């Protein structure tokens, strides 16, 4: 087993508030990668914009820190260009389910072999406390002054309904379990969502560490994660949220498989040279 410290970036200036759940998620991510004997150069952490999305700047590995909401598109492109890379897309709930909502929906359908870790603090952190798509109804913010009126997004149910092949939930308060979920997601071949509850100590006074502790429970071993309808009914539970792998389906072709270009040859695109002679042949075969 590798030492998680190989993923440390000594000069990083961790720009999160003291007590923020993001620190624990970063710790879990390094642990998961180290447990899997990954090297920093084999991994690409892709993110959008937000507090959570700063993660790749706080660790040592390849990274693409792109645009708000677009991490899943970036990550799909990275994986499609080089399926040999381990691709992890991280970001907040606003990033992934709000600005990136359309991409979330379609990435689930596309099933690229990437792991998607969503730091779900039920609020916008970086822009200082506006409601996010997962904010509870009634939550008052500087913008939602009369309280959030929209129904919260249910990311797990959405993912399951749209055919996600791996759906799990974790809580940043439990680093080991979070790391376990991450490992299972990375190992899974296909799109894997881990929605990770994370208290935002600065802007979410409703969903605190204690609230998450009181409103979550660990899934029993009896849960059959290959049962989609059982997974869906667990995902619909909102009184107390189950933690663990809700759904897992192996063997579905990935996006990269469906492109067809890796069927006979798994060489990444950067190592291939285009067949320019074929262009000439095609032109010559035209009338």
């Amino acid at each position, binding site marked *: 087993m590798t030492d998680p410290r190989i993923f440390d970036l000594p000069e*990083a200036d961790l720009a999160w508030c003291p007590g923020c759940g993001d620190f624990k998620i970063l710790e879990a991510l390094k642990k998961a990668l180290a447990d899997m004997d990954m090297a*920093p*150069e*084999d991994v*690409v952490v*892709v993110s959008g*914009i937000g507090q959570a999305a*700063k993660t790749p*700047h706080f660790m*040592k*590995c*390849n*990274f*693409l*820190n*792109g*645009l708000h909401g*677009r991490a899943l*598109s*970036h*990550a*799909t*492109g*990275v*994986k*499609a*260009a*080089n399926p*040999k*890379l381990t691709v992890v897309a991280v970001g907040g709930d606003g990033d992934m389910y709000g600005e990136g909502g*359309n*991409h979330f*929906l*379609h990435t689930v359908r*596309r099933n690229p072999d990437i792991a998607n870790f969503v730091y779900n603090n039920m609020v916008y952190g970086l822009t200082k406390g506006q409601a996010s798509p997962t904010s509870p109804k009634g939550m008052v913010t500087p913008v939602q002054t009369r309280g959030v009126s929209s129904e919260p997004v249910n990311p797990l149910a959405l993912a399951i309904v749209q055919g996600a092949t791996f759906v799990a939930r974790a809580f940043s308060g439990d680093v080991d379990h979070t790391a376990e979920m991450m490992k299972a997601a990375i190992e899974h071949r296909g799109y894997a969502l881990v929605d990770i509850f994370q208290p935002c100590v600065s802007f979410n006074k409703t969903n605190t560490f204690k609230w998450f502790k009181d409103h979550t429970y660990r899934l029993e071993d009896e849960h059959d994660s290959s049962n989609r309808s059982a997974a869906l009914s667990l995902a619909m539970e909102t009184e107390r949220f189950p933690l663990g792998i809700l759904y897992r389906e192996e063997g579905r072709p990935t*996006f990269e498989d469906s*492109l*067809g*270009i890796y069927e006979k040859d798994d060489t*990444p*695109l*950067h*190592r*291939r*040279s*285009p*067949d*320019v002679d*074929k*262009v*000439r042949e*095609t*032109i*010559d075969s*035209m*009338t």
Partner: protein
Amino acid sequence: MASGKDLSVVICGGAGYGVQTVEDILAKVLKRSGYHVFATREYMSRVRGGNNSTEIRISSTPVDGMVDEIDLLVVLSPGVRENIRRRITQNTVIAADRSSVGEEFEKTDGAFFDVPLGEMAKEAGGAVYANVIAAGLVLGIVDASTDQAEEYFLSRFGKKGDKVVDENRSACGKGLELGRSIADKFPDLAPPKKDDTSSRRVMNGVQAVSLGAIAGGCDFVTAYPMSPATGVLAFAAQNASDFGLAVEQVEDEISAVNMAVGASYAGASPMVTTSGGGFSLMYEGFSLAGVAETPLVVHLAQRPGPATGMATRTEQGDLNLAVHAGHGEFPRLVLAPGTIEEAYSLTARAFEIAHRYQVQSVVMTDQYLLNTFRDVDPDDLIAAKPDKCLVTSGPGYRRYEDVPNGVSPRSVPGLGKGIVGCDSHEHDEEGHVFEDFDLRVRMSDKRFRKGELLKEDFVPADIRGPENWTRLVLCWGSTGPIVSEALRDLKLPDTALMRVRQIWPVAEDVAAAVERADELIFVEGNHDGQLENLIKSVTGRSAQGHLRNYCGLQFSVEQVRMGLSEILG
């Protein structure tokens, strides 16, 4: 007969009447029979009905532009629209089935020739053959080779069995006979003499852009369908396995560009193909590619705007969109091919430069150019050997190393032991966010040093005219060949034509020619004179005259000829 040498045929019909098939038969059989062909299509934004047309010029020398003049109008279904009707003159022969079109052409100038297309089609095997008979009619008039027509049907329908081939052949034969019998109805039209065109290839704009991209090293295509850019997406998808292309129709243009940037970061050579509305949505991702210095090629197929504008029509209204694409500041390359050959060569060039300098290239075409086809000499399709210009990274690798020419050695994840960063923020040499005002200036300067290289390593403008010209006519993109033909007809001893092919950055040769000219005249397909304004902003020189067209149709040669004569008094 335009310029006394070529025959201009317009075929009209509703969507579903097979105008495109006529186009295809004529292009291929005529070229194989030794003629030079040029064709361009205009169509309505509907799947059935309406009335569309294609203009085919049949010539003994290469032709490359649209004319108003119609020598032969073949009508497949009633309801020919005003844009065609107003082009009918006393010299036009209209071939149509009176039982289908009725009195529609009673009051026009042209000579009407009743062709019982419906009856003949039924005899040949069904109403669907009317268009094939029409194609035969044209082939008969210009004395095309029957063998070549037979061969065409065999190669096109051979797989569908003998019956289909035979019916097509018989329909075409009926048309051919009729065509031969009425050739004398065109007393003024000397059929063009045949040339040796066997080494030439008939290619349309969509094929030229797509094949040019692949020749330039493109291996990744993402798009969301939008006319007129969709053809390139379809070509890429249909040929993906042959060329090893990753192709995805994504959920929207935002994903198209961002997936392309992700792929580029990881070592792909991507292209997105879109139209104005789609490119507007891509601005943020285009800007990301700019700060991240990931090579990216955008094929921007113009159609009239604002917003949805005229979905299937043509315009040159997006020059500003391309030159100013993205927020913030970063260098980019904007190229505008004017011919089929250039659509190929400049698209390939866009990839070459994108990789050489790690910049973003925009290739601007339009509906007219994409839906135009012509016979071309394959030797004129030029592309350098693709090179992604990658280096293998070592342990201390820094993606954004501040090197003298600004072009940091580029590696990708998995190519060497180094770590490869990529960031949308202002970043340090490793790609990490680091808010430092000196760093910001250093990095911005580094990016703009690459912009200087784009001015030095430029695509020259195409300048043609008499040695001692004093007046310069400027145009860009698809209007080029049309203006060129108009100027040839006008034979002005003091006038040269400059087709600007590298729109941005404006290169030294363009500035020098503008400087030398006593008089500048711009011809472009937009309302605002976007090239004119751009040249003015760069050189300070105002135009003495301009000709602009923004009705949704391309300029015709006659329109430019008349327009220029008026401007020049």
